[in-house]
Structure formats: C-alpha cells, structure tokens
C-alpha cells in the first residue's frame, strides 16, 4: 500500500523522461485518493486511535480488551452464533437453489428468473425486510395465524422474533440469494465432460460429487460462507427494526454511539467498532484468497 502513495512523485522534474511523465499521471488520481482518505480512511483510523486509549487517556490495549466484558461479550457470542447460523443456512439452501436453477431444463425462464430475483433480493434488507417478517412471523403474523389454524402454536413453542430463529429467518431472505449469486457461476463451471469421464471410469454419481464436484466447488462454498458471515455480522438495520434490545454487536455499537451516556462508555462503542473492522478485514481477506482459488476452474 505505502509504495503507491501519491505525493512521492512531487519532487520529479516536469516531463523530463517518460518515466517522470508517468509518475505525474498519478497526480490525476489525487482527488480520488484525497476524498477516500477524508471520508473513509480518516474515520476508520480515528476509531482505532480512540479505542487504543482508555477512559483515563492511557495508551494501551485495555479498551480493546474491555470490549469483551459482560453484555458486550454476550453480544459477541450472539452475533457470531447468529452470523454463522444464517451463513450456514444461506450456503446450504443457496447452493441447492442455484443447482436446481442451473440444471433445470424446463421452463427455460426459470434460471434467469432465479438469477434476477437473487440480484434484487440480495439487496433487500433493513427496515422494510424487518417489517415483512414482523407481518409474517409476529404475534399477529400471517404465518403464525396459518400455523395455528393447522394446530401449531408457534409462540407457545417458545418462538420469538428477536431470537436467533427469528433473526435467522429474516437474514435468510438476503443471505440465500447472495449465495445463489456466488455459486451460480461456480456450478456453471462444472463441466459435463468431468461427469462423463467419471461415469466412463465406472464412478457413480456419489463418487463424482465426492471426488470431483465438491472439491471443485469447495473454495466457492467456503468463500461464500465467509462472505455471508461478514454480511450478517455487520448488519444493523434489520435487527434494529426487529428488536428493541441490543442483542448483536452492531446494535451495541449503535447503543453506545446514540446514547446519552458518559464518555467512558462511549469509548466502548469505538472499541467494538474497531473489532468489527478487524473481523470484517479477516473475513474479506480470506474470501479474497478463496475467490482467487475458485476462479482457477473457470476458463
């Protein structure tokens, strides 16, 4: 990153050599770099600088460690569990749906319908989506009513909208389509000839999937899981509209940032945000690597 910093070209003579001219061309990117620095990098760095000082202005890792205490620790656990669960549901159902769509011969429009719908639904989220699930699974919800007509008492069996079950149901609405978008090209990458070769060598369908299909898809599936995990982990609006409690990490950050609380408490919000960035960076980094691997089979 540091090797590409723009101002380093400043000292060169104007247009002296082709090399120098090329360096000057970097200056054309200055507005973009400056903009990004001002509105993305500076805020991100200030989160870290804040979280490295505790409430008494001592430099150290205390504040970052404090983010893992009490209710915040509970929020972390809940967030990780919720994100992992909704990512797992997304990966499994999304892959099955993508496979069903990719291999369907009839009707012809099915595949493009699934692809286009996924493109739209993966973008839904936030307030309207939360409302939709309140209308569906709330105490006065449509599904609650239909189920009770069928003799199933949803709320009697301990269901709540603001639990892992309720939130996973809502998150699945954008997680499954996102997974479809990720795996569809990967499934398209499975070549007919591989299956034929496997069959001609005496392999069953099971052998094909165990020895060829799944290993080829593995990086996409794993990458998809990471992406979906990150997606759920940083989601704020959907959960915010579905619960008044600060259950998950983003909601706790929001709680600290919005609240009229003492400065020491606000610090915790910044520490949590710092952890959020760290976790996202790890997930996205790994995703990036896996995506490169997955692309190997697509040519």
């Amino acid at each position: 990153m540091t090797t590409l910093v723009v101002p380093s070209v400043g000292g060169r003579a104007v247009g002296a050599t082709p090399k120098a001219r090329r360096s000057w061309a970097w200056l054309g990117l200055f507005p973009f770099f400056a903009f990004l620095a001002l509105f993305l990098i500076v805020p991100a760095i200030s989160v870290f600088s804040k979280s490295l000082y505790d409430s008494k202005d001592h430099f150290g890792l205390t504040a970052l460690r404090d983010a893992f205490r009490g209710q915040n620790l509970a929020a972390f656990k809940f967030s990780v569990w919720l994100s992992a669960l909704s990512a797992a549901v997304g990966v499994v159902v999304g892959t099955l749906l993508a496979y069903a769509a990719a291999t369907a011969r009839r009707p012809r429009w099915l595949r493009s319908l699934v692809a286009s719908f996924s493109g739209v639904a993966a973008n839904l989220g936030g307030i309207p989506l939360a409302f939709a699930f309140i209308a569906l699974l709330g105490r006065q919800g449509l599904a609650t009513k239909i189920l009770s007509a069928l003799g199933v008492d949803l709320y009697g069996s301990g269901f709540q909208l603001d639990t892992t079950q309720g939130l996973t149901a809502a998150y699945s609405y954008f997680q499954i389509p996102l997974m479809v978008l990720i795996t569809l090209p990967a499934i398209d990458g499975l070549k007919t000839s591989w299956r034929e070769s496997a069959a001609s060598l005496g392999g069953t369908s099971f052998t094909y999937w165990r020895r060829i299909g799944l290993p080829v898809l593995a990086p996409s599936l794993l990458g998809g899981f990471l992406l979906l995990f990150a997606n759920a982990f940083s989601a704020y609006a959907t959960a915010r509209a579905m619960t008044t409690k600060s259950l998950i990490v983003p909601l706790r950050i929001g709680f600290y940032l919005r609240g009229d609380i003492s400065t020491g408490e606000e610090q915790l919000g910044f520490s949590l945000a710092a952890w959020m960035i760290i976790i996202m960076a790890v997930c996205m980094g790994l995703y990036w690597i896996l995506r490169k691997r997955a692309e190997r089979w697509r040519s």
Partner: protein
Amino acid sequence: MAFVENSVGAYATMYAFADSEGDRPTTPTPASRAKRFGRIVPVTIMVLCGLFFTLPLLAMARFSLQNVPMIHLGWSTLFKKWSFSGITRAFGEQGFRDGLKLSSVLAVGTVVLTLGLLLPTALWVHLRVPKARAFIEFLTVLPYVIPPIALVAGIRVIKPHARWFLNSDLSLIPFYVVLALPFTFRALDAGIRAIDVKTLVDASRGLGAGWVTTMRRALIPNLRTAIISSAFLTATVVLGEFTIAQVLLKRTLPQFMAEYQSREGQGGMGLALLAIVATTTLLAILTLATRKRGQAQPISRF
C-alpha cells in the same frame, strides 16, 4: 430503494453476472434409477424457496392494505376491506414529506458527486495509469471492510473537530458516495472497458476538441448505460440507507418509516411495501436493460 444492510458481498456478483453468457450448466447424465429422484428434489427446493420468498411480501401486503384484524381473518373475510387508506394517511404526514425531500436531495447529491469524482478517475486510470488499476480496485472494496456501523463510529470520533460540517444534513452525501463506491466504480469501469476509449479520445482530440468537449460529445454518450446503472444503484442505496442516518439523527425517509411504523403500524408497513415494490421494479428494469445489450455489467451491488 435498496435497503442494503451493508455492501459486503457486492463484488460477488461482479463475476456472478460476468460469465452468465458462457457455457450452460451441465445437465446430469441421468442414471435411470436416479432420474425420478433427481427431479423431485430440485422441484421441492424451488417450491419451498418460492414460498419463503413470496410469503413475507404477501403478509406485508395484507397487513398494510387490509383493515381486518388478524383474529377475524378467515375465508369469509379474506377479500373484504382492502384499501390504500393506511398509505394515503402516511403520505399526509409532515415527517413523510420532509423525509422524502431530504432523501431525494441526498440521492441527487450523491449521484452527482459519485459521477463527478468517479468518472474522471476511472477514465484517467484507464488512459494514463493502468498500473494503478489493482490498487484502485482494492480501495473501492474497502467500504466492505469498514461497514456503515463502523464508519459512523468514525464519524462520531471526528465530529467534535468538524461540527460545522457534520451538523448539516447534506454532510451525509460524501459518506453515501463511499458506501456506494464498490459497485458504482465497477459499473463505470465495466462500461469504460467495453468501449475503445483511447481511440475515441484520440479521434476527438485530433479533431481539435478540448477535454470538456471530448467528455461531453464523445465519451458520455458512449458510456450512457454504465452511467445510468451506477446512478440508479447509487440512488437505491441512498434512499434505503438507515444505519448512518439513524445514529447521526438525520431525518431521512427510512428513518421516518421506522419511527412511523411504531405508532401507525399499518401506514408504516404500507410505506415499507411501497419501498420494496419500487426497489424491485427499479432493479428489475435495470437487469433487463443491461442484459438485453449482452453486456457483462454488474447490475447489482452484489
């Protein structure tokens, strides 16, 4: 409006759509025994997913458009008392009009700033510093790593030093440009790569046109689809953004929607339904429009 929580996955689609023109998928060469089983499973998956994705919308439509309490809902009352009264009442609210106005202004501002900043940058990278490409691409996906809730924490940190700026509602614009960056840049970049920019520029410059004329008469007309796509997508992000606006207490449309729903359940639900319908229509049109051209453009933020 797209109510995107965050844009983490956005570039997944960049390649999801990129090779949709390629080979069709393998059809399993069916062993006859597995044939029937092999058909039941996909159909079941399709039907279940179909239900999962339509039921919430139906429930929402019923809740916002029918004035029958859930307890009285049955076969006899299923088609009674449907009306738009909840939505029209919401339209009459001062908060709704203010929220719509603010969100629209923010959307326009964000689109203008996005195009003003990114179009020259993307062209410049393409023409003069192709080496910078990978680095620029890396920068444009950074907003996934720093999701809205973390970004707004950063904004809170710098707020005491820039109160004059952040107190204004319009200060949201640059941050919204950042949120939309991953896919706006991609959309523009894909458009630029689809045409021969260098020849266009050389021809135009050779005929004596300045940079402004070249942009206006040669480049922008050829990049129309890419420009419209990124403008649409930017607008959908802005109109749905909740996290930053809520933490900074800005009264945007989604913010009003959330607040209104807690006191007027039906009206709030109706607004949310309208929002979903609007987004879906917008993105569907965009999908069809870009597909028809056969361009491998990312139409979704994912």
